């Protein structure tokens, strides 16, 4: 039996939220509408499909919020975040209005679709706005709690869904804290969302701590500092592995360890226009985000010495 994927879980939970809370509305732009048909019949005024008009979709979320509602807007990541970014900036943040934005597509879930349907820069864009929560679940079973708590909250949140997934969910991570999966001495490796399993495979024989993050904004600075203490080295080595543009969260590592000598290896999607199709695994290899590539980068960073578990 296959477990439901992230998008299916999102639609199911959002439909429950529509039933439970009259302030909740779902705003769509022709994507995933089939998954909301039942909910739309029950709540015709609160399931809103504006057609292929993503900027309007975000502005509508802003207007709904200004009347006291709690909107969830959803589309493919590049259209929700990049095409409509001025609307996010001005019709949500600048109005002091808030919404929950939920995307699918991520960095390169649909490799055959090419660049127009890929958004490795989405998190970096939202990161330019103050006060947004950003969640990157690594498994469908983390989506329900992340979505519910985001909708319960009063600020804006971006939830980045993907077809890439870890084998198991880590429920502890849905609190927003770094979830320590393994403890080691040599370095701290932070794996975000679906990067956890590749990181665990890449570091299986390395003496490193691995921490999992399903929430990257706010970043668990205290948790990272705590992990850095534990490594008991003069200079802390940190590896950040993100499923979107490499280095997106580097500034938070710098902030967490500002008074602690440290080195940082930021891994993630490269800033190159690949113009290649195939499979996501093909692209992982090109960006060095497959387990073998991750291991090479990490071992090189750690100088290849004193890295074996005793």
């Amino acid at each position, binding site marked *: 039996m296959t477990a439901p994927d992230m998008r299916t879980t999102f639609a199911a939970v959002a439909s429950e939220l529509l039933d439970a809370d*009259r302030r909740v*509305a779902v705003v769509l732009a022709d994507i995933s509408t089939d998954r909301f048909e039942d909910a739309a019949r029950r709540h015709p*005024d*609160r399931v*809103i499909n*504006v*057609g292929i*008009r993503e*900027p*309007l979709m975000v*502005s*509508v*979320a*802003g*207007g*709904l*919020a*200004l*009347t*006291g*509602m709690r*909107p969830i807007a959803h589309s493919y990541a590049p259209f929700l975040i990049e095409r409509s970014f*001025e*609307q996010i900036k*001005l*019709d949500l943040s*600048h*109005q*002091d209005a808030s919404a929950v934005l939920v995307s699918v597509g991520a960095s390169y879930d649909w490799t055959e679709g090419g660049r127009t349907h890929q958004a490795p820069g989405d998190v970096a864009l939202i990161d330019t706005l103050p006060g947004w929560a950003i969640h990157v679940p690594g498994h469908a079973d983390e989506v329900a709690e992340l979505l519910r708590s985001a909708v319960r909250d009063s600020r804006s949140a971006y939830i980045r869904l993907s077809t890439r997934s870890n084998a198991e969910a880590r429920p502890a991570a849905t609190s927003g804290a770094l979830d320590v999966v393994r403890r080691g001495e040599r370095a701290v490796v932070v794996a975000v969302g679906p990067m956890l399993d590749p990181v665990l495979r890449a570091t299986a024989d390395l003496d490193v701590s691995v921490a999992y993050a399903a929430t990257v904004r706010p970043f668990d600075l205290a948790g990272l500092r705590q992990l850095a203490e534990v490594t008991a080295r003069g200079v802390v080595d940190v590896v950040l592995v993100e499923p979107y543009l490499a280095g997106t969260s580097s500034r938070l590592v710098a902030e967490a360890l500002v008074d602690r000598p440290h080195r940082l290896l930021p891994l993630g999607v490269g800033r190159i226009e690949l113009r290649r199709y195939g499979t996501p695994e093909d692209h992982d290899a090109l960006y060095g985000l497959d387990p073998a590539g991750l291991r090479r980068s990490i071992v090189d960073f750690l100088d290849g010495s004193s890295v074996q578990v005793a």
Partner: protein
Amino acid sequence: MTTSELGLDYADLPRLLTMMTGDEKHDASATSTLDVLWVLYDRVLRVSPATIDDPTRDRFLLSKGHGPMAYYAVLAAKGFFPTEWLPRFGAFDSALGYHPDRVLIPGVEISSGSLGHGLPLGVGMALGLRAQGLTSPRVVVLVGDAELDEGTNHEAIAYAGAVGLGNLTTVVVDNQSATHGWPGGIASRFSVNGWTTATVDGRDHDALEDALLAPVTSADRRQPHVVVAVVEPKFG
């Protein structure tokens, strides 16, 4: 309709404008919206300083956010904020910027300044009011004819017409400043999408009042409405 406790009237507006600009003369192009705004706040909108947080109030959205002096003058005349704020227009810690901020100014529903955002926001507000069973309040959005160049307006116009958003009214202040004009006229851009339309003299207070109240007085309103208020050309 509001009665200002200050007893300020249309005739006081030039004086209030001068408090902001330090300039005795206010040419029409700088105040293309003045008469529309006055008629709205004096005769049409059901909102007052006492009801700015009332869920059943009418919502007025100034989408044409540049040159907001006329808007500020009208709001001050109606008592939404003290007239003493006006001379501080644009000062560092002033509530009154060159584009309005809803977080800083009582009675301002949306922060504007980038064109093409007010109408889409207004669509969202109209949907939100309807979803909550608030059937009496209206959403009235003021845009400029050049502002209509922005494509986001047309997403809103098409969608609002398609779903029959009857609690939404747009006022287009037309001073013929759109670079490439509007072949076929501005009203046709709305009517083809199912809006009802009226085109009136933007300086005629009675005509404006009739056109702006028409959606309220007609029963069973199922279409959004546009009033094109024509004023003198901006560039002569």
